[in-house]
């Protein structure tokens, strides 16, 4: 079960589509085989 705090974070993420640039960065670094 997830607590109210985690539920709030998840809601924020889904509502605002937060971290879009971070997602692109993760994808780019994974494709390049880099982790830094």
């Amino acid at each position, binding site marked *: 079960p997830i607590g109210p705090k985690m539920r709030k974070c*998840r809601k924020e993420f889904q509502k605002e589509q*937060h971290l879009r*640039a971070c*997602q692109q*960065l*993760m994808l780019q*670094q994974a494709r390049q085989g880099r982790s830094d």
Partner: protein
Amino acid sequence: PQGQQQEQQLFQQCCNELRQEEPDCVCPTLKQAAKAVRLQGQHQPMQVRKIYQTAKHLPNVCDIPQVDVCPFNIPSFPS
């Protein structure tokens, strides 16, 4: 080079996004973001590990107040 410049821009944007998060939400949302990236396409196990490694260390790299390395686990795969 253009690729490096683009990556630098992405990095700055990502750090700005993280700074807008509440400190308590930084790691949970990064984990959500990593999962979203993982589900966006087919990735090799090593790439999935890189996605989570990047997510885990972003608060530290971006120097986010009150957050360091996120405590979530990196998925492991049988060799």
